[in-house]
């Protein structure tokens, strides 16, 4: 059973990692013929899901798209990297939840999108959080006892987010 939890965590890590291959810096698809991350982000305005979120994308995100693009790249790279090795897994499960909500609010009403795929993404991050999946075949599992026994700040923090 614990092997299955590790497989789910690693599978979700690969989901985030593989979806970085089309988030190409430095433009992230911004240009004369929009593509990639820029086009998906624009859908939040063209096909609004939650109007206040669309307003934020239109007035804050799109005018500062390079900053947003790099932020997405680092957040999703950290998600893929840390879920893959099972380090600070519960924290990154929550980050994955938040990122999934942002993606859902951007694209859920766009053509050919299937809302349930995003609901499933949400649920799998809930499962990773609830089961603390990094404790099985992950770095969390290897080091959590040491972190818990330590009196230093960083190990205690890692114990709390594992």
């Amino acid at each position, binding site marked *: 059973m614990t092997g299955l939890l590790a497989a789910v965590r690693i599978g979700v890590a690969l989901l985030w990692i593989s979806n970085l291959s089309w988030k190409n*810096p*430095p433009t992230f698809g911004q240009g004369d013929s929009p593509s990639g991350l820029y086009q998906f982000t624009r859908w939040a305005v063209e096909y609004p899901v939650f109007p206040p979120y669309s307003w934020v994308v239109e007035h804050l995100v799109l005018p500062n798209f390079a900053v947003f693009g790099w932020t997405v*790249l680092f957040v*999703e790279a950290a998600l*893929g990297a840390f879920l*893959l090795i099972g*380090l600070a897994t519960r924290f990154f499960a929550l980050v994955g939840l938040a990122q999934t909500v942002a993606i859902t609010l951007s694209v859920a009403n766009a053509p050919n999108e299937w809302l349930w795929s995003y609901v499933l993404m949400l649920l799998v991050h809930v499962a990773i959080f609830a089961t603390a999946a990094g404790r099985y075949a992950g770095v969390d599992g*290897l080091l959590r006892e040491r972190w818990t026994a330590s009196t230093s700040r960083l190990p205690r923090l890692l114990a709390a987010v594992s």
Partner: protein
Amino acid sequence: MTTRTPLDRAAVALGVASLASALFALVEGDLEFVTMGGGGVAVTLGLGALAVAAGWLGSRPLALVAGVGLLVAAVVLLGLLAATGNGGFLGGSASTFALWLGLGTGLVVVSLADR
């Protein structure tokens, strides 16, 4: 005879993962989870083999070298992507960056952990 600890076995597992990821160079389409090409294959095979050897021999310094090497390769790749829009001599994409970030961090953490 070397007694391998769970941390050494973790270094072996991370090294094997690095070696296995080179197979993505042979895959195209939806199953190409990580973009791998050019010098990136050499990096992932060379440092993956080093990590396996480090774990097998129970050598923390070697595991640390492999981990730091992967992190340096990840940073260089990101610099190439930012400057040129492609992975240059390393090949790869941001997906390769994330993979190396994870494997490199894992190796550094297990090599620096108290035994």
